[in-house]
């Protein structure tokens, strides 16, 4: 995927400064800070320039910042989408036909796994169990879990609601 140019907008710089201030520039809060920054970036990832900015402002080595970004699967180095749709790939969802959910989403959005819709609104990701096994098969979009998803209609409704937002 190609990195979008000119990512360090004044708005993002302000978001980053606020995120670091919120946690008092505390190095032990690096994860929270990066998660908050990722949330503020329209395509929900940590642009390279943002990682460098955080390292500089927090007096951390860039290697430490990237060690953290690359280690944790909730942090992303490449552009995603406004709404990353995370489909659980773990065992409970698997035995409850998560393949139906994934296939339907691919069909409805007309994209494959880890691809992004042309408008940058949706991407499809597979993730391990997020603890919603009582709602299997489940998907997660930001802080919201949807499940159990057993009909095409349910899935279309979720996508449509977000497409209109």
């Amino acid at each position, binding site marked *: 995927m190609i990195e979008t140019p000119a990512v360090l907008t004044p708005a993002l710089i302000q978001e980053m400064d606020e995120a670091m201030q919120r946690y008092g520039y505390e*190095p*032990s*809060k*690096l*994860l*929270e800070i*990066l*998660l908050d920054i990722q949330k503020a970036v329209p395509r929900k990832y940590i642009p390279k320039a943002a990682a460098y900015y955080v390292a500089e402002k927090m007096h*951390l080595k860039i290697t*430490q910042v990237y*060690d*953290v970004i*690359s*280690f*944790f*699967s*909730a*942090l992303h180095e490449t552009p995603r989408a406004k709404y990353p749709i995370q489909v659980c*790939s*773990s*065992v*409970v969802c*698997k*035995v*409850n036909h998560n393949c139906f959910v994934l296939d339907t989403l691919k069909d409805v959005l007309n994209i494959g796994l880890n691809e992004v819709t042309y408008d940058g609104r949706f991407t499809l990701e597979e*993730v*391990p*169990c*997020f*603890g*919603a*096994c*009582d709602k*299997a098969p489940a998907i*997660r979009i*930001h*802080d*919201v*879990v949807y499940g159990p998803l057993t009909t095409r209609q349910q899935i279309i409704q979720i996508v449509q609601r977000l497409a209109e937002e």
Partner: protein
Amino acid sequence: MANTVSFMTRNFGKYNPSSLDSYEQIGGFSALRKALSMTGEQIADCLAACAVKGRGGAGYDMGKKWRQAREVNQPRKVVICNADEGEPATFKDRTLMENDPFRLIEAMIIAGYSVGAQDGYLYLREEYSHLRPLFQNAIWQVREKGYLGENILGKTGFSYDVHLYSGAGAYVCGEGTALVESMEGKSGRPRMKPPFIKQCGLFHLPTCVNNVESLCLVPSILLDDKKEYLSYGTQNSVGTKMISVAGNVRNPGAFEIPFGVKVRDIIFDLAGGVKNNHEIQLIQFGGASGKIARPEDVLDIPYTYEDLTAAGVGVGSGAILVIDKRTSVLDFLLATQEFFFHESCGQCTPCREGNTQMKLLLEKVMAGMHTGEDLQNMKKIIMIMKNASLCGLGETAQNALSCAMDLFPECFAVKTEGN
């Protein structure tokens, strides 16, 4: 015997989880008041008397842990609540936190008082980010009310605060030293032990880590004048337990049961039985790192530490995963193997290479292309991973596969000749 009880879940639905006032109206923070009238030692003794075993999976004696933490002779100590709940099929901690967040905060304060800590940290997995506002709000209200801060409830010298931390999607961070690494702003790779975190953990301070459920038991136990807790369970498995039942069942959910309920009653009564009355293929206990059993070997045993161990499985994370016969044993194993392949931190060779090779070998078995030598290699890798991995992830990753090779040898029958 009733199949469910409300001991640590007694507040569910009884108060508004966003309001400290409403928690206090149903008796919230009376356990802290009681605790502050006792010594830290007496509190640990109380847990020891109830034989509470840690509920995060390892089952360490909780009273002993608190006593040891207390005895560490250092001026600054920390308490961590492990809310990383990452074992697939496990969601009992989520259920406790969603329904009764103030109980957990109260318990963390009691823990701090008992072991002599100044700070408590709640490490909440990123996947539970929907609970962050609930806890931010709860901690703020509790601080405003003076249950956190200096000289809490007039107890001179007891100053304590609670801080919320987030994970970021790494199962291994549930392991104590990895959790601490991640809280220090680093990647979550487990540390070499010793030093153990009880002596040198977060920010080099003595650290006492407990699971959400372990902590949630504490307020109820402290207020249990009538010894209700001791009336539940069996001689070797005292009290009640949160379990989560999932898979091909009609009514998946988290339940508080007294130890000793029959596995059959858990699956067929509490969880409503298997969907469409399919036959059960296998049952996994304790999450992806747990062992598996054939239904005929476990359905009629009581859910206790001792009976599960005797049947070759264990309590672990408290999850019970029911898989019916529409999923093959090998498909199930591959899903489990893919999980560990994805989650291994890659730091030590047995686990990194072991999980990679086991995935390839399993795929070979599924294709019917494996030889007798492949099976020998699988057994060898299982043994090496179990004995030479740096942390519990590598040690337990092959539990299910290892059981399956014994229980379902037909799935591993060699179909090709040669090497």
